[in-house]
């Protein structure tokens, strides 16, 4: 075990939060500077890991193993592969941007940034844990800061922030109750007493009976699915995002709900392939419901956050249908799309947050012509919007295309419906953007300044990733493929069906 890079990246925000506890609560600037500094450390280390990943070697790298609870078989095992690295990078990109998107928080900033850093650390931990127990620990850590942040700094519009916060929390927790039963069942069934372990790779290597796989996968699908806002467990998502403060919406829509997709692949597909095969058609059907139904609802929304909230539900449908295809291409697309959607939605929410912070409204009919006063913010909106509808040259085109290629082979009809969903996406995105950004100059917005200084950081960071990911898609897809291919091929071998379509592009 060499340099504990991942542990340091994980501990940086936690130590930052501890330091903040001792800073006097009036020193806002220092609080924000420390938060930005620790997130810069995490982001830097993540970039080192991302570009230092050895493709030739593959598999889990930067691993650390410390026996944690011996009798339970818990290991403090960290490590990243091609599936978790993009997610880790996403977490830190968004976490870093979220700190700057919250630069103007003046209400109890000390508490805010302590909770924000804990939230980011929690999300980061889930993606780098190789042990199911540690994974679950981090997965639920996020609940506490999440709830408190929504009720203090949230906004009450269509629903009160208390309602939104509680809905978010209860959905996440009830889902996790089912998930927990499923995870413990897997743990107990994998090995006899004495050899039990929570290590995900060992659990994936164990063999389970088919009825058990079907049962356990259903539990996981409910648990992870409700986090991923899978239809019909999606209704927390728009309300929650609308009630949450900007940074929470960014992190939640950007990375937190991706834990659902990540968990489904890492534990669901790889450990329980027969269960996945049994439920895949159902998931594909629900995914199409996600795409079409949520997009339709997004059409009718007048609050910007609700538009993006439903759009994120709709986009998760693409991820799910990619998963349900159960082939290398589909799953590649699903993972890459989680990354793409994360960047895009975080940028969207940070721009909405900026506009709301200045104008105190998110109601589309009240806004208009903002491109005159806020050209930079308008650029951010346009980039996010174009990425949302899958414009070639931006980060989300290739992943969506990959998903369609992967899923068309398995579910042609559903794939066609899903592709048609893009048209609706274009409709509501373009309409919202046109109404908010363009049109005649509205004098009442004249005194609002454009984004500048630290406020530009989310736009610069996330915007450049959007473009870079679009122009050099291999930066992400090669990484994803190097993680997905060996694991999914092994899974297909387990299923008995030869991998008919190989990887590569």
């Amino acid at each position, binding site marked *: 075990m060499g340099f504990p890079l991942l542990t340091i990246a994980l501990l940086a925000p936690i130590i930052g939060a501890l330091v903040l506890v001792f800073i006097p609560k009036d020193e806002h600037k220092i609080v924000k500077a420390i938060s930005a500094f620790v997130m810069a450390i995490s982001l830097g280390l993540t970039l080192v890991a991302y570009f230092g990943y050895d493709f030739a070697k593959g598999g889990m790298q930067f691993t650390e193993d410390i026996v944690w609870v011996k*009798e339970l078989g818990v290991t403090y095992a960290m490590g990243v592969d091609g599936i978790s690295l993009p997610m880790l990078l996403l977490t830190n990109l968004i976490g870093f941007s979220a700190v700057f998107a919250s630069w103007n928080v003046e209400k109890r900033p000390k508490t805010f940034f302590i909770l924000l850093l804990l939230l980011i650390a929690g999300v980061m931990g889930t993606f780098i844990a190789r042990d199911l127990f540690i994974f679950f620990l981090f997965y639920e850590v996020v609940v506490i800061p999440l709830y408190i942040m929504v009720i203090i700094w949230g906004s009450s519009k269509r629903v009160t922030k208390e309602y939104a916060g509680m809905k978010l929390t209860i959905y996440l927790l009830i889902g996790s109750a089912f998930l927990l039963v499923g995870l413990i069942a897997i743990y107990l069934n994998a090995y006899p007493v004495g050899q039990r372990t929570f290590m995900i790779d060992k659990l994936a290597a164990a063999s389970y009976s088919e009825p058990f796989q079907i049962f356990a996968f259903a539990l996981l699908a409910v648990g992870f699915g409700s986090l991923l806002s899978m239809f019909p467990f999606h209704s927390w998502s728009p309300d929650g995002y609308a009630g949450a403060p900007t940074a929470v919406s960014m992190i939640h829509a950007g990375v937190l709900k991706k834990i659902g997709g990540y968990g489904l692949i890492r534990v669901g597909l790889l450990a329980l392939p027969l269960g996945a095969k049994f439920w895949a058609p159902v998931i594909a059907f629900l995914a199409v419901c996600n795409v079409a139904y949520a997009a339709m609802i997004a059409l009718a929304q007048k609050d910007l956050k609700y538009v993006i909230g439903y759009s994120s539900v709709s986009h998760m449908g693409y991820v799910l249908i990619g998963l349900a295809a159960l082939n290398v291409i589909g799953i590649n697309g699903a993972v890459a799309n989680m990354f793409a959607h994360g960047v895009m939605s975080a940028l969207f929410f940070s721009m909405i947050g900026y506009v709301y912070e200045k104008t105190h409204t998110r109601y589309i009919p009240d806004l208009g012509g903002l491109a005159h006063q806020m050209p930079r913010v308008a650029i951010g909106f346009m980039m996010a919007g174009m990425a949302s509808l899958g414009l070639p040259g931006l980060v989300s085109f290739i992943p969506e295309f990959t998903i369609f290629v992967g899923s068309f082979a398995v579910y042609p009809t559903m794939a066609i419906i899903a592709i048609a969903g893009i048209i609706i996406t274009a409709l509501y995105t373009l309409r919202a953007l046109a109404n908010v950004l363009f049109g005649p100059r509205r004098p009442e917005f004249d005194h609002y300044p454009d984004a500048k200084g630290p406020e530009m950081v989310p736009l610069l960071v996330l915007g450049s990733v959007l473009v870079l990911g679009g122009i050099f898609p291999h930066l992400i897809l090669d990484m994803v493929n190097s993680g997905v291919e060996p694991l999914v091929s092994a899974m297909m071998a387990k299923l008995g069906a030869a991998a008919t379509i190989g990887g590569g592009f």
Partner: protein
Amino acid sequence: MNMSLLSTEILTAVLACGLLILCLLSPNKEKHRGIGYATLFGLLAILVTTFFQYGINETTFHELWIHDDYSVFMKELFLVAAILVTLSSIDFVDTLPRFRSEYYSLIVFAALGMMVMASANDLVTIYVGMELMTITFFVLVAYVLGNGRSSEAGVKYLLLGAASSAVLLFGMSLLYGLTGTTVIPEMMAKLHWSPALVIAVVTLIAGFGFKISAVPFHMWSPDIYEGAPTPITGYLAVASKAAGFAVLVRVFIDGLPLQNGVDWLTVMSVLAGITMVIGNVVAIPQTNIKRMLAYSSVAQAGYLLVGLMSADAAGVKGILFYAMLYVVANMGAFAVAIVVAKELGTEEIPDYAGLAIRQPLLASVMTISLLSLAGIPPLAGFVGKLYLFSAIMDKGVLWPAFVGFVMSMVSVYYYLNVALYMWRDEPKDNRPIHVPGAIKFTVLFAMVATVFFGIYPGPLAEVATMAAKSLF
């Protein structure tokens, strides 16, 4: 006869009597803080001696008394609870009108009663220990002279406690009649199915169910928790309940056969199920923090009963581990309630508004303690539930895990309700709240222990495993 097996109890009895003598020696008008600290250090010293008592598994007094790792673990739990209660009481005792010094002695006597229960290998010894504990609690619950609610709670507890003791005694007498012995392990071989055994098991469950406040024997707890002085409520909620579990586990696992006997596992399963559901659901509408914690403690009894359902070492280990964390988390919450009651003069949850601004430490401890009770990782309550529910899932029974995990997520609703008021609202006034040193220590200990054992449960789990194995 090996008297050294009773050393913990002898030391505790000496401490309790010594404290009484100290009361007589010190003038009546004084605050008696010194006696509080004497209690504290006495209990700490006894706690230290218990660490050297693991590994001795012997019986004495013609099998009436057993000293095993299980009993040592339980005694440590009672001592930890008594220490935390003493710490949280020191400032509360100042506000009492009279009889300040005797208060501490009673706390130690109650702990002595619990220790006797934990080490009792025979029904009569159990009863003696239980009465020592219960009668002390009658006094402690009614300790605030001139306060009608405290006296009312005392009388209620006296009446209901006496009735439950009578029921329990009836069951014990039936067992003696059936077997001709009161020694628990000897009963095992002599019991066969008979209608009298059914009645005995049912009355035993009713009697112990009262002590652990399992549904439907929980009715007393909200009223008495609300009326009793807050430190005593905490003591009642954690230590008295744990003592109830200590004997419940020993009597049922060591004494009552499942084959050819009465299928008490089914009864326990039903009790566990309805206790988890009703405790959590009824806690939702409560607005008084002590009533809310009372119903939450009912729900916790349900989780603990799940450990008994699996009736093996893994399940008992879950009970031991969870009970210890339950002590720590609950005492953290009660310590915060004590300060708030003293400084703000209220026990209503909406009055906790703005606590996060006025006193962030208290608000953090309250939130962490409550979420640990709800079983949210990385807090210790989660690991405890994992042990309890994985033990029963390992037996192939899934429904308790479903009910338990879903109900604990429901419990998050009412726990977070407290957090909502503490964190969201602006305080009514901005005076900082003074936290006395002893309470500060209690809440910090509770917070650190809850987080530490949640992230690194290994050491405590190993001790609990060893203690549980000594029963089988």
